[in-house]
Each structure stands twice: as structure tokens, then as C-alpha cells.
């Protein structure tokens, strides 16, 4: 093909690809496509029930809670009563302003009895459906155990009157005295005693310390931008109004949406800064390494096309991509530039060597390095973790695009050769010299580190490391929680099921486990307001067997000193309930209960189609994990997610090991076992050395160190191939390796400065591995096939 036509085709292909890519990106709805939601990092169809539950929670009203602590300063010598009144007025102004905002769905002062009253009314009205089945089941067991001679109905009436008489000596009898005439079975008082743990969730007596605590539920999803900004505006407006009513009023508040918004803001800022620093660092390396700095700009299109291809492919393949993929993936530039360097820095073999001829001799190592790396990263596509899958596609697509772009771009450049400075072409050390022997000792020391250090590694995954810490917000959150009087001696469990019946069955198993594992502790769950499925289905039969219970109870009450005529409200309700022709379905019973849970109480249960869960509050410290049959997890989501991330690390490790095996196999096939082993030893040895350094320095490793190691191995694998190819031609390692390794090291070194711990882990691992590989190539060059190493001499020189 004629050179001018070759240039034309190359330009056309490049232009077409770039145009299509830009059009695709221009048409994207970035708000929908790019996610900053931490939970998008884990699979939507995660098989672990705990994560399914966490996902459910994040979308539900439980995640929409915002808690405010309003601090109104007292005036000088202001009488307490007047101050209390003024403070209440300011709080009312604040709440009123929040209520008027469409971004806020519900507002109420903490400790407001309205929600509890509403639930209490419902429980009282539905006491025969909700509480009687369980009460009858317990009494029936006791009756059978007592082997009493009297009838069941007679025994039950006598037992009821006796229990009521005993109850009246208890302190709480005074609080319930107006209720007892309608509830001599003590259904509601007994339940009230059992559920004291969630009577006023989140607030302990004496916790408020002078602040007015306000609870609110936001209307929008807190992890999405549209659910955040309107809330912030509403809060700011309400605070302004409160300060008008009470000058000097201070506000502390916490909500998941605040953390999510701050995390997004910081990641976006970090992304811009890191990219800029990385670009500047790569340019700086290029500027000091090549003779004509401006000619180095020819490498920019290669990086641009790699990133463009990676963005386009990833956004095409995945419906939703986490922003962290782009933060980490943006450093693809450091890798993509490898192929450009290798093509551009190789001098022509003879003056006027056609580009096709040059490509022909360089294509094998280029394809070998690119395809083996792509094979390795493609395996990540089979990971369970969306983030790893997305990274695998991003890097694989980016590398292929980088190779294609490098081949096409330099095909249309008049002089596709960039001369490096002398120090980059430094021939390396002679292993036989005194200095060389000293350096060999250095290699031996490195080998020792690689053999010993990895055994000292400690692995731990923490999902919090995926985010940039926001100390100010955390401090404010801790302050609000301390005002709430958060109780560290409590454990909250979440029990789930596909239906209310399944969840209630699981809850019963949890309560049985809890009673055995913590005999001295108590457990309170709103789920116990529902009878078990067995208790509910036994009701028709049990009601039938109690046809004469009314008159028998009246007689028993009279015998125990009660004025039985005062219990008319109970007997009327009892007869009405017994004669009711149709009873509600079990799921309807659960929905009815859910609809009566308001304010903070609504956080204790959810009855959505396909998923019901109950919260259980226990008075023992967290730590014990309920058995799987309880379908229960601790509400402390961090520990749950950390365990899952640990599992994902093992999955990534298996895939990486498989990928590495494939890479090694490809090298053995392409370069025969002897040479292949030598090539493969370089990246593996570099990786082991890096792990050894981490192990000896006490670094705690996580999933992202592992990913970084995989990336580093693939990169150093390139250096090994390029070096081996040159050695086969009787040449010293190509200068492109040094330049490429330095560029990669600085770009990933920049990542190591990230405030996101996992990104820093990735950066430091890759930088350390590539630098190790570079040093290894320099200190232990591949044996040359042709005796008498010679420097690659540029054409025309």
C-alpha cells in the first residue's frame, strides 16, 4: 500500500472511531449511568441474605431518616419556664419549615408519643387478632402441662382472673388501669412490657442534654443526587427560619444523604486533581527523557483513544458504572502509553524503513504483551463484584484501543520515531564488574524479601476504605448520636423473609436462639405483635372451644373480688370477635400493622411485596451471629459488608490466579518453556517482592492491593516480553521499557497519594511492582542471542 494511502486510511479509521465514541459519550445520561452509590459496588443479585437486606434498606424509608439536634441558647437570666417555651417555639418554627418542603415527607420531635399512641390504639383495637392467638397458645400449653381436671374454658377463666389479681400489685398496673376493663386478659400490658426496648427507639432517658431532637424522613432516595440537594436546601431554609425565631440557634444533623453527597463531591474533586497531576507527571517524565518534548505530544492521542475506548465500552456493557472505576481507570493512561512508547521509541532498522516493515517486526511483542494482559483482565469480567467486572472491561478495552490507536496514529505520522536522551539508552550494568556483583547481592536481598515477606502479610477488607473520610461530618454525626444517647450495649438484628409469614417464622427461630444464647438478656421486636403462622391457623378451632368462656370468666372475676359488671367493654368485644364471619389473611394482618407504624417506629419493620423484615432490639452487646436458619443479620452493616468484601477478595484471588496461569501459558506457548519461564519469572518475582515489602512493613492488605498486583504483573509482563524480544535480536532492553515504567510508576505513584484508601493501595502496589520489574530488567538483563550487545542506533545517526 502506498504511504499516502496508508496515512489516509489510518486517519479515516481513527477519525471514525473517535467520532463514534464521542457521539456515544455525548448522548449518555450521566446522572443515570454513573453511580456514586456505595452499594452499586456490590452485586444486585447478591446471594447473601444480609446484603440483599442491606440493599433493601438503602432504598427504603430506613435510609431516608435525618436526625436534627437544635440548640437554642438561653438568654441571660431567662427563667427556665420561659426559656423552655421559647425553645419549643423555635423548634416548632424549624419543624414547620421542614414540613412545608416537598423534600421532607415526615417530621416529628423525638420522644413524641404520637407515633407510639397510634400504634397503641391499633394494637388495642386489633388485640384479639394480633395478640390473642399467641396468648391462647401459651395458655393451652400450660393447661396441657397442668393436667387439670376441669374443662379448658373453666381453667382458662380461673387462670385469667388470678393473673389479673396478681397484676394489680405491680407498679405498671396504675398506668393501664383504664384499659383493664376492656382487656382483663392483659394482652396489651403484657406486650407493652415485652417491647420496652423499642418503645422510644434511639432516645434514652436523659440523652437530649438541652438540645431539641427532631426526627425527619426525606421524600427522595438519599443516595441519589435528586434526593440530596432539595433536602439540604430545605434544612438550610428551616435553620434560617429557626435563627430568625431564636437568634444564635445552632443546628447539628446527620443523614445518609449528607455522607453520600460529601463522598461524591470529594471523589469528583479527587478525580480531577489526580488526573491533572498524573498527566503533568507523565509529561515531566517525557520531557526529561526525550530529545524533542513537543514530539512527545504524539503519545497524547494514544492515551486519549485508550481512555475514550475504555469509557465507551464500559458504558456500553454496563447499565450503571461506579465512579470509582473511572477514578482508578483514568490511570489507564500510564499503561496505555506503553504501546506508543514501544512503537515510537524504536529506531528504524535502516534509513527510510517503511512503517509497515517496522510494525511487522514489532507486532509480535506488541500483540503478545497486549493480548496476554487483555486475557488476564478479561477474566475479571467473571468476578462477582461489579466494580472488578467493570475495571476488567475498562482496562481490557482501553489496552486494545491503545494498541489500535498507537498502530494507526503512527501510521499517519511522517517520522514515527522519537529519539530519547542518552541516559534512557544507558546500556545497563555489566554483571561481571565489581559494581555489578554488588548489585547482584542487591538482587539476592530482593529475592530474600520476596521469599520471606509475603508470609507476614495480613489481609483485611473494610468497606469504609472505599470512601474518602469526611471528619467534619463524622464528628457532627457522632455529636448527634451522643445527644440521642446511642446505646453500645444493644444489638439490633434484622430478620427477613419473602412473606410476612416466612419472616415471622424466622423471627420465632431467632427468639429461640436468643433465649438459649443469651438467657439473661431480653429481646424486643415489633414482629412479635404478629402471631406465628401456626398460632394464627389454630384460631378458628380455639375460638370454637371457648364458646362458654365469657360467662365462666365473669364468675371467676367475681370470685376474685372484681366488679365483673365493669368488664362489659371486654365481653362485648369478645362476643363480637368470636362471631365475626371472616378473619383477615395473615399478610393483610402484617400490612395493617405496618401501616400503623409511624415516625421512628416505622424503622422497626417493613412489609413490602416480596420482602418483609423485622428489627429486634436486644440488650446484649453486638458480636454474636445468629445461625443461618434465622435469616437474620446484625444491623451493623459495616461488619456484614466487610465480611462480604473479604469473600470477594478470595473470589478475585482465584480469578487473578487463573488469569496469571493463562498469561503464563500464553508466554510458554509463544516463547517456548525455557524463555517463557524467564519472561514469566520477572512479573511474578516483582509481585512477590512488592508483597514482601508490604509484609515486612506491616501493611494491611485488601482486595485492591490484590487488583493492583494483578495490574502490576500484567505491566511488568510487558517489560519482560519487550526486553526478551530485544535480547533475541541481540539488543539491550529497549528505552521504551524505562520510559514506560517511569511513566507508569509516576502515574500510579500519584494514585498512592489518594485520600481514598483503596485507591492509594492500588497505586502503591502497581508503582512498587513496575519499579521492581524495571530494576530487575536493569540488573538481570535477558541473555542476548547475538554476542556483543549494541545500543539501538537511530536511523541517520
Amino acid at each position: 500500500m502506498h504511504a499516502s494511502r496508508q496515512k489516509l486510511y489510518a486517519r479515516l479509521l481513527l477519525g471514525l472511531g473517535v467520532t463514534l465514541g464521542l457521539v456515544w459519550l455525548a448522548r449518555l445520561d450521566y446522572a443515570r449511568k454513573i453511580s456514586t452509590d456505595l452499594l452499586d459496588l456490590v452485586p444486585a443479585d447478591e446471594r447473601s441474605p444480609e446484603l440483599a437486606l442491606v440493599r433493601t434498606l438503602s432504598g427504603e424509608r430506613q435510609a431516608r431518616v435525618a436526625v436534627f439536634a437544635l440548640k437554642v441558647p438561653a438568654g441571660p437570666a431567662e427563667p427556665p419556664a420561659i426559656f423552655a417555651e421559647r425553645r419549643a417555639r423555635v423548634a416548632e418554627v424549624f419543624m414547620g419549615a421542614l414540613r412545608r418542603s416537598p423534600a421532607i415527607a415526615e417530621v416529628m420531635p423525638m420522644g413524641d408519643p404520637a407515633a407510639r399512641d397510634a400504634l397503641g390504639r391499633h394494637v388495642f383495637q386489633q388485640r384479639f387478632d394480633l395478640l390473642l392467638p399467641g396468648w391462647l397458645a401459651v395458655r393451652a400449653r400450660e393447661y396441657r402441662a397442668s393436667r387439670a381436671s376441669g374443662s379448658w374454658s373453666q381453667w382458662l377463666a380461673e387462670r385469667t382472673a388470678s393473673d389479673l389479681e396478681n397484676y394489680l400489685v405491680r407498679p405498671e398496673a396504675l398506668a393501664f388501669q383504664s384499659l383493664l376493663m376492656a382487656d382483663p386478659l392483659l394482652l396489651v400490658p403484657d406486650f407493652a412490657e415485652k417491647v420496652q426496648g423499642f418503645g422510644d427507639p434511639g432516645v434514652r432517658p436523659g440523652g437530649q442534654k438541652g438540645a431539641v431532637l427532631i426526627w425527619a424522613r426525606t421524600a427522595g432516595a438519599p443516595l441519589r443526587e435528586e434526593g440530596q440537594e432539595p433536602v439540604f436546601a430545605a434544612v438550610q431554609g428551616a435553620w434560617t427560619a429557626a435563627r430568625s425565631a431564636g437568634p444564635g440557634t445552632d443546628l447539628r444533623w446527620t443523614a445518609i444523604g449528607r455522607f453520600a453527597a460529601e463522598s461524591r463531591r470529594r471523589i469528583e474533586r479527587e478525580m480531577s486533581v489526580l488526573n491533572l497531576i498524573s498527566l503533568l507527571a507523565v509529561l515531566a517524565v517525557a520531557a526529561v527523557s526525550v530529545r524533542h518534548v513537543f514530539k512527545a505530544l504524539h503519545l497524547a492521542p494514544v492515551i486519549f483513544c485508550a481512555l475514550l475506548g475504555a469509557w465507551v465500552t464500559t458504558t456500553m456493557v454496563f447499565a450503571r458504572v461506579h465512579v470509582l472505576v473511572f477514578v482508578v481507570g483514568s490511570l489507564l493512561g500510564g499503561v496505555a502509553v506503553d504501546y506508543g512508547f514501544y512503537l515510537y521509541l524504536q529506531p528504524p532498522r535502516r534509513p527510510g524503513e517503511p512503517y509497515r516493515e517496522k510494525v511487522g517486526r514489532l507486532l509480535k511483542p506488541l500483540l503478545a504483551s497486549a493480548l496476554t494482559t487483555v486475557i488476564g483482565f478479561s477474566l475479571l469480567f467473571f468476578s462477582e463484584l461489579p466494580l472488578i467486572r467493570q475495571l476488567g472491561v475498562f482496562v481490557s478495552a482501553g489496552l486494545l484501543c491503545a494498541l489500535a490507536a498507537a498502530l494507526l496514529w503512527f501510521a499517519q505520522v511522517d517520522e514515527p520515531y522519537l529519539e530519547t536522551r542518552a541516559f534512557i539508552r544507558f546500556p545497563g550494568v555489566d554483571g561481571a564488574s565489581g559494581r555489578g556483583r554488588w548489585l547482584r547481592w542487591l538482587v539476592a536481598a530482593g529475592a530474600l524479601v520476596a521469599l520471606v515477606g509475603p508470609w507476614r502479610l495480613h489481609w483485611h477488607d473494610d468497606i469504609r476504605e472505599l470512601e474518602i473520610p469526611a471528619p467534619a461530618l463524622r464528628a457532627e454525626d457522632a455529636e448527634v448520636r451522643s445527644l440521642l444517647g446511642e446505646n453500645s450495649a444493644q444489638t439490633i438484628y434484622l430478620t427477613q423473609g419473602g412473606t410476612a409469614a416466612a419472616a415471622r417464622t424466622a423471627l420465632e427461630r431467632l427468639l429461640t436462639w436468643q433465649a438459649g444464647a443469651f438467657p439473661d438478656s431480653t429481646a424486643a421486636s415489633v414482629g412479635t405483635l404478629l402471631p406465628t403462622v401456626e398460632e394464627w391457623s389454630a384460631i378458628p378451632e380455639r375460638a370454637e372451644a371457648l364458646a362458654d368462656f365469657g360467662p365462666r370468666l365473669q364468675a371467676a372475676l367475681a370470685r376474685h373480688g372484681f366488679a365483673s359488671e365493669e368488664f362489659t367493654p371486654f365481653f362485648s368485644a369478645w362476643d363480637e370477635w368470636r362471631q365475626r364471619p371472616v378473619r383477615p389473611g395473615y399478610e393483610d394482618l402484617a400490612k395493617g400493622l405496618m401501616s400503623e407504624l409511624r415516625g421512628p417506629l416505622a424503622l422497626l419493620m417493613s412489609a413490602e411485596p416480596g420482602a418483609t423484615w423485622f428489627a429486634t432490639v436486644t440488650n446484649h452487646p453486638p458480636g454474636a451471629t445468629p445461625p443461618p436458619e434465622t435469616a437474620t443479620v446484625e444491623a451493623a452493616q459495616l461488619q456484614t459488608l466487610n465480611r462480604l468484601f473479604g469473600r470477594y477478595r478470595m473470589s478475585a484471588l482465584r480469578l487473578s490466579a487463573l488469569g496469571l496461569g493463562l498469561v503464563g501459558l500464553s508466554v510458554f506457548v509463544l516463547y517456548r518453556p525455557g524463555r517463557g519461564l524467564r519472561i514469566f519469572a520477572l512479573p511474578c518475582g516483582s509481585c512477590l517482592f512488592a508483597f514482601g515489602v508490604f509484609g515486612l512493613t506491616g501493611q494491611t492488605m485488601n482486595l485492591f492491593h490484590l487488583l493492583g498486583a494483578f495490574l502490576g504483573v500484567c505491566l511488568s509482563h510487558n517489560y519482560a516480553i519487550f526486553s526478551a524480544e530485544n535480547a533475541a535480536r541481540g539488543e539491550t532492553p529497549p528505552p521504551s521499557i524505562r520510559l514506560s515504567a517511569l511513566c507508569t510508576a509516576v502515574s500510579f505513584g500519584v494514585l498512592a497519594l489518594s485520600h481514598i484508601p483503596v485507591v492509594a493501595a492500588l497505586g502503591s502496589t502497581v508503582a512498587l511492582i513496575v519499579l521492581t520489574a524495571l530494576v530487575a530488567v536493569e540488573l538481570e538483563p535477558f541473555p542476548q542471542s547475538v554476542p556483543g550487545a549494541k545500543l539501538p542506533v537511530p536511523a541517520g545517526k
Partner: protein
Amino acid sequence: MRRLFLILCLSALPLAGFEPLPAPGPIIVPGGGDAAWQPLFVTLAAQGPIWSTFTECRWFLFRKTPVILKGELRFSPTRGLSLHYQEPEVRTIIADEKGLAMRDAGGRTHEVPSDPRVTGPTAALLPIMRFDLRALEERFEVHAARSGPAWRLDFVSRDPVLVRALGTVIVSGEDLSVHQLEFRHSPKERVEIQIGEVRTGVNFTPEEERRFFR
């Protein structure tokens, strides 16, 4: 038989010996009649820690006879109020700055939600037992009546929720002694706490403080 009758009569003497005034007195307000009552309040407030026995009679609308409970009352100006029931069940109720707590015979304590409908009379008693008239007048409408050595103070909360929950709190006594506390919803629904033996200015031992306060 005569001996048994004598024992019963003697044990009933402390109760039978005191008859509270039948009706509430007029409202006393700061600067408007409360000066005459200040000495009583000051003296009662200065008694310091108190220990006494008590008998509590609970009258329910649906029960023909009262339910009777007996126990010991401890009041410490710094630690709060403790009602230690001994009969028919052992149980302690503690009202202090943190709120209200119940302790069972096994020593297990649980806090009671701060709703006045749940905390009931004991929590309401704590500020009254301090007998700080100025502070009480902010929270209650105070009625006072006197007849000879007998006196009666009626406290009607200014909070309607508390009024519905507790009714009127009536403190009755003679000279400088409190003899009876009463929470009255209606004549048929009320709680009378009759004070028996009293010791004022007592020093509670550390063991007592641990058992009966928190």
C-alpha cells in the same frame, strides 16, 4: 382471740390516727398567699434524706376492695426517690434525674420511657418531695388548706397530659410531718400512700445506695 384482735387494732393505729382534710384549699400564688406556707415548705425541704415505711392502697374502679402494698420509702435530695415494695412482691421503683427505673427482686433494672402516662405517680412525686415551693409553683397549681395542726396541699399539674395520667396529687400532714400522699383520679380510682414510721436526716449506707438508688 382477744390477743389477735388487740394486735390487729394496734397495727392499724397509725392509719386510724390520721384523717386527712376532706377538701382542697384555695390556690396559693407567688406573692399572693404563699408567704404563710413558706415555713412549712422550708421545714419539709430541710429534712434532708428520709427513710420511712409506707402502706399503699390502690383503689380500682373494677375492684371492690383496695389492693394493699407495703414497703419502704427512701428519699435523698441528691439521689432521688426510691419506693421499695416488700409485700406482696419485692420490687423497687427509683425516680431520679435520669428518669424512672424499675428493679426486680433479682436486682435487674430497666428504664421506663419518659412518658408521664407510663412513669406514673412515682416520677411526679420526686419534685414534690423536694418541697421547693418556687419550683413547684412553676409546674403545678398549688392549693393549700389548714385546720388546726392538720394541713393539706393539692398539686394540679399545669401539663394537661400529666393531669390526665395522675389526677391530683394530694399531700396531707400534721404540724411538720407528712402523713399521707394521694393520687386521685376520682373517688373510686385513687392511690393512697400512708406514711408509717419516719426517720429524717438519715445517712444511707453505700450498700443501701447501691440497692435502692442508681
